[in-house]
């Protein structure tokens, strides 16, 4: 499978409320990430916006519906459209999530957790092989937030991801917030998680916010609707020291603030990464 060279830069997710900013001003980012499915359409304004954005910035296609964990395999129509979009946009890379979203009959439109079993690993690897073959390129897969583990689990999530990357040649998109959320919900150590990953396969880092647990609800919810919290910044500091320079971005999916607020957060990420790199070099 093809090699994805490291890309050292800082970016933001493109959201509708910021279209004008990205098309009419010089937004100081090194790349832009878009939700693939929003542009897997026949024509119209969304594709025009994406093409104009692509003319100004490198673009990453980040999907939410590949359903790489589906026991029934991948949706060939979906793959066809994704491949066409990738050909049209020539992205830095194409990514999706370690999860499943659909059965043969229905689609949940949510990133559902997989049982961490050898059987699921076989399914995921076969599906990734198919996707990478169709796209003609290696992909990145992101660790999900989860609220559920299964009695049949046979391995840790980091062991699953490591073996998945080893067998398929795919790369990893490490969402530090998702690690935090799942660590809180399932009681594992985020540091142990990082230590268990093949960090040389990490090509991108996501930073985001979440909704904390409450007195009535013990689970932390990955809402991506607020600023990155201090605990996640601490984890980013820890992982940045381990990975070295990696494409890093702030991901906000809901309650989208003015662009300036996201750029401030991105500036903080940049400072942490630069400090980590200086410490590594010293």
């Amino acid at each position, binding site marked *: 499978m093809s090699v994805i060279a490291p890309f050292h830069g800082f970016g933001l997710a493109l959201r509708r409320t910021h279209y004008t900013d990205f098309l009419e001003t010089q937004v100081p980012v090194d790349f832009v990430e878009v939700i693939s499915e929003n542009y897997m359409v026949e*024509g119209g304004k969304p594709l025009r916006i994406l093409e104009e954005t692509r003319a100004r910035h490198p673009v990453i296609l980040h999907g939410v519906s590949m359903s790489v964990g589906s026991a029934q395999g991948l949706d060939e129509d979906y793959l066809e459209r994704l491949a066409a979009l990738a050909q049209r946009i020539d992205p830095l890379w194409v990514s999706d999530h370690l999860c499943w979203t659909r059965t043969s009959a229905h689609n949940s439109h949510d990133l559902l957790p997989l049982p961490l079993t050898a059987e699921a690993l076989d399914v995921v690897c076969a599906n990734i092989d198919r996707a990478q073959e169709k796209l003609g390129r290696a992909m990145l897969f992101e660790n999900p937030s989860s609220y559920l583990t299964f009695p049949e689990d046979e391995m840790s999530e980091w062991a699953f991801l490591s073996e998945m990357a080893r067998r398929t040649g795919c790369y990893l998109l490490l969402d530090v917030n998702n690690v935090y959320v799942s660590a809180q919900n399932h009681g594992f150590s985020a540091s142990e998680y990082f230590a268990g990953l093949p960090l040389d396969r990490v090509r991108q880092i996501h930073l985001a916010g979440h909704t904390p647990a409450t007195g009535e609800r013990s689970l932390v919810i990955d809402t991506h609707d607020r600023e990155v919290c201090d605990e996640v910044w601490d984890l980013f500091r820890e992982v940045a020291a381990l990975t070295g320079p990696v494409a890093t971005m702030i991901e906000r999916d809901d309650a989208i603030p003015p662009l300036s607020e996201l750029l401030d957060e991105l500036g903080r990420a940049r400072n942490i990464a630069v400090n980590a790199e200086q410490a590594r070099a010293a």
Partner: protein
Amino acid sequence: MSTLAERQAEIMASLLDEDRPLPANLGRRHEAGLQIYRNNYRTALVEALRSTFERTERLVGEASFARAAAHHLITTPPSSWTLDLAGCGFADTCADLFPHDREVAELAWLEWAMHLSFVARDSSPTNLAGFAQATAEFGPADWEGLVLRFAPGIDLRTVHHDLKALWSSLNEGEGEADIVPLDTPATVIVWREAERPVFLAVTQAEGDALASMIAGASYGQACAAMAEALGQEQAVETAGAMLGRWLGEGLVEGLA
């Protein structure tokens, strides 16, 4: 079925039916987590419907719309990989739920047709001059056999209310919905002008002719059907004006 496939079928069934008992081997510890996934599923889909059917929501009110959306998710759970198609069939759901208020289903259909045309394939319409040039040498038989290609994403439907008035009255911040029944049913045509979905109301006779030509009928066949409905004299008059309107509005992509 594999163990994984069985597990996924169970989880999916639990999302679709909130009253369903917990899947096998999952205990109380898992219930809170499953509840979050159920909530995510419902919230994402209802939000998708609200975003697509903004005016329909304003027409029926938030509470009624929420009930209709929840009903739609039960009767028509999503099967496509794209959330953008979650509203497929919602106009039919509205027709079932609001049988005495037909304007609700008509408006929902209009919003859905515009939603689809928004991302239809790009194309450039043929204008009157281009069409005149393409048909300059046409004889009677050529006109009889003329078949047209129409704008991608074009759709049409018979309606019983003035949707233009209803649409305008439901702009954000406007007052009461303007529900005006029509004396005779009309046809509303939806297509996209550059990047903007638009619609137009025409007579049912014209709508029938357009529907038949979109389905592949020739101009001659459409005119013959129109003559049967309107009489020869009126059909001749209407057919010419109709073709001019389709070209002027940008509904025609070219000659097939």
